[in-house]
């Protein structure tokens, strides 16, 4: 009986400590900037990622999510934009209540093919993805002027629950 009890208690402790991690690729988030000049510019857009949607993809409940970390990110620019006209990309999240956090960067950009960013795996993004006022900010350095530039960003997330 003593052994059964010990086994039960240890399995209970062990099960409480288990964390599950789901890898989820998000839909694209759009950002836009207008009247841009050569040099540093900013594109912005509301963060349209919904925690509920991410939780569904991860197969869990939004309330059970403990942390969300970035494992990868890709960016694509509006068709017609010459690849060489964008020198660098820095993706950030911010909201009225949360500080601006840098999550992915690339410099210089590859001449061809998809633009895979260097992801910052150290920031927990749960609070940002849970904040309806969150904004995605994409800083770009341009080699020339542009009337408008659109960028879409998608993220690979590790969701811990």
């Amino acid at each position, binding site marked *: 009986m003593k052994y059964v009890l010990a086994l039960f208690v240890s399995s209970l402790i062990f099960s409480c400590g288990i964390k599950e991690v789901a890898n989820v690729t998000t839909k694209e988030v759009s950002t836009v900037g207008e009247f841009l000049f050569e040099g540093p510019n900013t594109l912005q857009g509301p963060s349209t990622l919904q925690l509920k949607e991410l939780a569904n993809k991860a197969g869990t409940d939004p309330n059970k999510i403990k942390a969300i970390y970035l494992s990868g990110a890709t960016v694509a620019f509006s068709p017609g934009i010459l690849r060489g006209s964008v020198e*660098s990309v820095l993706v950030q999240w911010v909201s009225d209540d949360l500080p601006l956090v840098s999550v992915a960067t690339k410099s210089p950009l590859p001449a061809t093919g998809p633009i895979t960013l260097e992801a910052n795996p150290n920031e927990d993004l749960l609070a940002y993805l849970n904040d309806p006022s969150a904004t995605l900010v994409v800083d770009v350095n341009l080699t020339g002027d542009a009337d408008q530039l659109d960028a879409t960003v998608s993220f690979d997330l590790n969701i811990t629950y």
Partner: protein
Amino acid sequence: MKKNYLFVLALIILTPLFATDGDQLVGVWKPSEGRSLIKIDKIGNKYYGRIVWLKSPKDENDEPRKDVNNPDESLRETPLRGYRILKDFEYDPEEKLWVGGTIYDPRNGSTYDCKIELKDDGNTIEVRGFIGAAVFGRTDTWTRMKKK
């Protein structure tokens, strides 16, 4: 055509009504060392400043200077030109200060608490970086760049 003129006229009249005292910080500023220019703009209700010009934009390998001292290795490839060194400032109308933000020093990769005060001339700010209490810090005077 007449409608367009009326719209532009309304915009000119109404725009100052939407600008707040805090927006006086928006603009391009030159730190005392003169080796960079910082453009301060607003995202949501907070103010951010980024490097828009560097006196020496290239490193010893003739490559754009990057944030090589960032404590986060994943961000060390980010170019310094365009980097946001001032983050998350909010305007305190009672104190007439921009507070709650941070300033990043790319020379050593350190981030400090920071507050900003606009001097009476409207074209000079005192940027004070500190750790913990504001008495332990350093103040730098920045000058507003104006269009010629």
